[in-house]
């Protein structure tokens, strides 16, 4: 019984969007009764309601996080001061963000800016910039001529890297033909080869992946929507 309800609910959840996609644009919402109200006109309201219902879930994460860290603080686990910092940061950010929106004041805004522009944002972009370092160490470690695949990947990466910096381009700048001519060897310049790999090989391979992925996503969508999916989460009797 419960299982049937849930299968039905899953189906209904997706039905509107599916019908909205499949039915022609002029379809009225309720046939014969409301010729002026189109089926697709309801999309905004339905979207709004589902959005609101969804957002109620946000506090679930907060509840769990507070339980975890309050527990750590009360039991004085090692590193409990970090939990204090976490909860303080949470409370401060939440308060000042709301204050900024609903009761702006000079110093309130300044503190919000301290928390957001001078802590949150820089930490964010610094973590992101760690990638520059990781990139270097990953390339050094991984690009060895151990297998054909690794060698191909390394070779292409080297060409692309050389082709996008001025010094690399200088290496093959001698291959340029005279002004206005386009001899065959001018196609061997690094930036041209790079363009070729990016434009033809890479685009084509990406498109191949995309086609496969669309079909895969299609099948999975269908399976979940029609409750055909199997696996621990999907077929346990309730």
């Amino acid at each position, binding site marked *: 019984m419960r299982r049937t309800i849930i299968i039905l609910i899953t189906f209904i959840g997706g039905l509107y969007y599916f019908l*909205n*996609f*499949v*039915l*022609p*644009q002029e379809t009225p919402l309720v046939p014969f009764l409301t010729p002026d109200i189109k089926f*697709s006109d309801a999309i905004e309201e339905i979207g709004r309601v589902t959005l609101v219902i*969804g*957002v109620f*879930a*946000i506090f*679930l*994460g*907060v509840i*769990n*996080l507070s*339980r*975890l860290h309050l*527990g750590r603080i009360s039991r004085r686990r090692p590193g409990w001061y970090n939990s204090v910092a976490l909860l303080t940061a949470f409370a401060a950010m939440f308060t000042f963000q709301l204050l900024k929106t609903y009761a702006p004041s000079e110093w309130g805004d300044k503190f919000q800016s301290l928390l957001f522009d001078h802590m949150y944002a820089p*930490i*964010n*972009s610094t*973590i*992101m910039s*760690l*990638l520059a370092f*990781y*990139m270097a*160490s*990953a*390339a050094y*470690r*991984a*690009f060895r001529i151990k297998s054909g695949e690794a060698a191909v*990947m390394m070779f292409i990466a080297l060409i692309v890297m050389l082709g996008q910096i001025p010094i690399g381009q200088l290496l093959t700048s001698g291959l340029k033909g005279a002004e206005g001519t386009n001899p065959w060897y001018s196609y061997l310049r690094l930036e041209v080869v790079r363009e070729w790999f990016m434009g033809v090989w890479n685009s084509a391979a*990406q498109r191949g*992946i*995309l*086609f*496969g*992925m669309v*079909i*895969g*996503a*299609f*099948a*999975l*969508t*269908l*399976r*979940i929507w029609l409750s*055909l*999916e*199997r*696996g*621990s*989460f*999907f077929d*346990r009797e309730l």
Partner: protein
Amino acid sequence: MHATYTMLVLTVGFCGPIIYFILAARRGKGFYIRPIAGISAISEAIGRATEMGRPVLYCAGLSTLDIDGLCSMAILGQIAKMTARYNLRILVPMSDYLLYPIAEEAVREAYAAEGKLDLFDEKDMIYVPNQFPFAAACVGMMHREKVAANFFFGYFAAESLILAEAGNQIGAIQIAGTTATTQIPFFITSCDYTIIGEEYYAATAYLTREPTMLGSLVGQDVGKITITAFAIIGTVFALLAALALMKTNWFLEILER
């Protein structure tokens, strides 16, 4: 967006075989499926974590409630089932508030199905919104809990390499699968196994080995054959049009209707 006629025909053309083969599989028809090493390696990774007696980390990246995220949750359910079987902890940081309850439910279900509900701890599931705080939290967790295996399944953006390199530093065995093709190179360089593109959607079928799911894979192959046929026919027509053997490329015109 509303479907054009081509889209409707294609929808039927894609869905039809999938449903047909699922039904055929349910009637007991067996299918051959080629192995995907990355997916077979999942149990190897969990075995290693069991030997070391350390937790595993499952990371769904920035997935939201779309098809990538749902697929990730289905895989999480399967992996959690294995960790439950071997009495392991599974750490699941989540970045999306809608997927967070789903993930919790999936892990709880998995532990309940194995009769190990007492091992399940909600505190191992944490909610950390936004890309880089999420990455920082994952990296911190890896270092502190000394995880033995990392699973990255879902949608990833720039944080992919941060996560994979951090896992590499602590020497965890790492398996990744994502639909974000731009991130695959970084997983390839830093992870032990990488599952690419459509293989990701096929993962649950491989893990469950349910006939229904295998049937769906066969149906997907029919879809891909259709696309291949389209591409070849389209190219032939484009060639005919370019050589002026045809006045108009009516194949293209039909498609664009």
